């Protein structure tokens, strides 16, 4: 069992957890993730390690309540435990001094973009962050992102805070203003990552995305997370999760992520129903 040291909501439905996991805290690098299993009947869910404190022996994860498991996780409080946390998994982000690096986070993807943005800053890059959310109340990690950025932008789809529009519009604006950009990292929903790849492709800007296929073991033994990169099949859990955005078959990823849509809905509804019955909802 892995003890939760702290649990706080960053926005509606988005919760940040600090979890005791000393071996993982000591080892993890930016871009890596853990697989968690909330309870003994639970499924294995991949979540990016947003931060770690090797001295305290804790890691930080940020979860958005989307399906049954993440909603169940988001009901956990400090002092509660989760059954399993395994990691760090995946290949760490490739970090070097590219020059000017733009880190783009969409929604809860910001939590994934943050550790890599921080590592890019530490490697000497001029870091620009673009942090996108649907509306003001869903903006997360604003201060953290600012602290690791030379320039920080917030965009909201409805214009309720910061730049009114999508992250891609802000990125296009930066490119059009003649800013020399050497590297772009984009993490968020699949359509957003695809849109960023489409913006940078004509300019030949090296662009990396962190993919989020369905995973089970996370150690390379099942191929459930396989993605098409160029013409090759790769396993996101060991070869990734970060890949060259201009080589990714985003349509295939989106198609494959829909396989359990029906079951996810069923499990989610059953969970909500059970919570209401037990008065926890």
């Amino acid at each position, binding site marked *: 069992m892995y003890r939760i040291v702290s649990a706080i909501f960053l926005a509606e439905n988005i919760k940040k957890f600090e979890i005791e996991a000393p071996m993982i805290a000591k*080892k993890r690098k930016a871009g890596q993730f853990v697989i968690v299993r909330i309870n003994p009947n639970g499924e294995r869910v991949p979540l990016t390690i947003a931060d770690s404190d090797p001295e305290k022996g804790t890691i930080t994860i940020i979860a958005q309540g989307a399906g049954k498991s993440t909603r169940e996780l988001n009901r956990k409080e400090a002092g509660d435990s989760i059954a399993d946390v395994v990691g*760090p998994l995946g290949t760490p982000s490739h970090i070097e001094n590219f020059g000017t690096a733009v880190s783009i986070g969409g929604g809860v993807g910001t939590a994934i973009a943050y550790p890599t943005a921080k590592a890019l800053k530490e490697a000497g890059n001029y870091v620009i962050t673009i942090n996108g959310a649907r509306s003001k109340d869903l903006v997360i990690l604003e201060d953290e992102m600012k602290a690791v950025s030379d320039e920080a932008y917030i965009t909201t789809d409805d214009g309720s805070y910061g730049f009114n529009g999508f992250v891609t519009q802000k990125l296009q604006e930066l490119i059009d203003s003649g800013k020399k950009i050497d590297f772009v990292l984009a993490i968020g929903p699949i359509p957003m990552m695809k849109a960023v790849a489409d913006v940078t492709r004509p300019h030949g800007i090296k662009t990396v995305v962190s993919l989020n296929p369905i995973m089970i073991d996370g150690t390379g033994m099942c191929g459930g997370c396989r993605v098409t990169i160029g013409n090759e099949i790769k396993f996101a859990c060991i070869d990734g999760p970060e890949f060259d955005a201009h080589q990714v078959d985003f349509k295939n990823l989106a198609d494959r992520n*829909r396989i359990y849509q029906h079951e996810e809905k069923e499990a989610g509804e059953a969970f909500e129903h059970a919570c209401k019955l037990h008065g926890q909802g």
Partner: protein
Amino acid sequence: MAIPRQKMPAQDPQERVGNFQEVNLGLTPEQAQQEALRCIQCKDPVCIEGCPVNIKIDQFIKLIAEGDFMGAVRKIKEDNVLPSICGRVCPQEDQCEKVCVIGKKHEPVAIGNLERFVGDYERQSGQKADPKVAPSTGKKVAVVGSGPASLSCANDLAQFGHKVVIFEALHELGGVLMYGIPEFRLPKEIVREELDGLRRMGIEFRTDVVVGRTITIDELMEEDGFDAVFIGVGAGLPWFMGIPGENLVGVLSANEFLTRVNLMKAYDFPNNDTPVFDCKGKSVAIFGGGNTAMDAVRTAKRLGAEHAYIVYRRSEKEMPAREEEIHNAKEEGIEFLLLTTPLEFVGDDQAWLTGAKCQKMELGAPDDSGRRRPVPIEGSEYILPIDMAIISIGNGSNPLIHQTTPDIEVSKRETIVVDVNTMQTSKEGVYAGGDIVTGGATVILAMGAGRTAAAAINKQLGGTAQHFDEW
């Protein structure tokens, strides 16, 4: 030979396709004693050499004949701590029972069924037949992976008096025994109970540790003070066929399918959170002809598939699966499409699989493996309509260990290279065995390799050469 080989009762095929309970029900005590009387107690029991872990077969069978079932299981556990498991999953027809002298004229003694019987007897009786453990040597060995190779290595090391810590990447112990072999062939409760026996011997288990990611082999030796390391991580990297359409929705590896169903208990969704492809009333094809393919296809049938096909490019004679499993599959209504190979997968505009374009084959001249090579028949292509495709053409080696421990030599196939007499790798103090060395093989061969490594590790650590049953 007046006594016929005792037939093990089994669940009726019609009934068992509707559940995940064990197919074979085990011998009764009377049957076991009868069967034991068929053993003629050869002076030179060749059956022992046929067993990769060299169980003293004649001795344990004699004890069964005398009605001393606990004595029999104690005798087995000197060499193999997993009798309930091995009695179920070993291919005895290729090993101990193949060389049984009785088998020359009659059916061989049912060694596997007898081993299973006494293993089950111990657990059901509530008594313990734990092997004796030598006084502590103060030496520590790390065992990576908790599958069959690791468990048998750990068992011997513990009996020699060394401290053993097993590191497992998944949340459950047992490797392929847990995620690969289905409940209806090997109930998971049995695996857990046999593992408890290892715990009582002082072996420590640590789950959720991925060696190569959470900690490296060098760190285990240099920082954590392990005197030796045994690598038994298996061959768990699934191969795909590399044909068009393999990334369509509904095409998955047998490893993924079986892991969801066995380890994550997706057959009991939504009581367990992990979903699996809804097979009810669907057509499911498994591509391959090994034991994994049989496990997958019988699982699909139990999940309600209307058509569950085995698609195999050679004929039934060349199938690597056990005869018993092929027989069981046929009884359960599995459809065999032999001499058939897929060329590509086809799907609808939502990228969901709708079929496999297959080609008929005929057998040509023997290839390097001695099996007749399948040759395509021109113009025989057709579309097999299917909703799910499960790829079961074998597994390669996971690259995590050698990526992070570069001084361990690997072959071109990325299997770990060892000295076959000691199972030592190119790195001092590091040994390996099982599928990570041989590629996909059997539970019992992995266990044999684990024992060989344990003997060599014991020698390296200056342990006594005295056999542990004398402690």
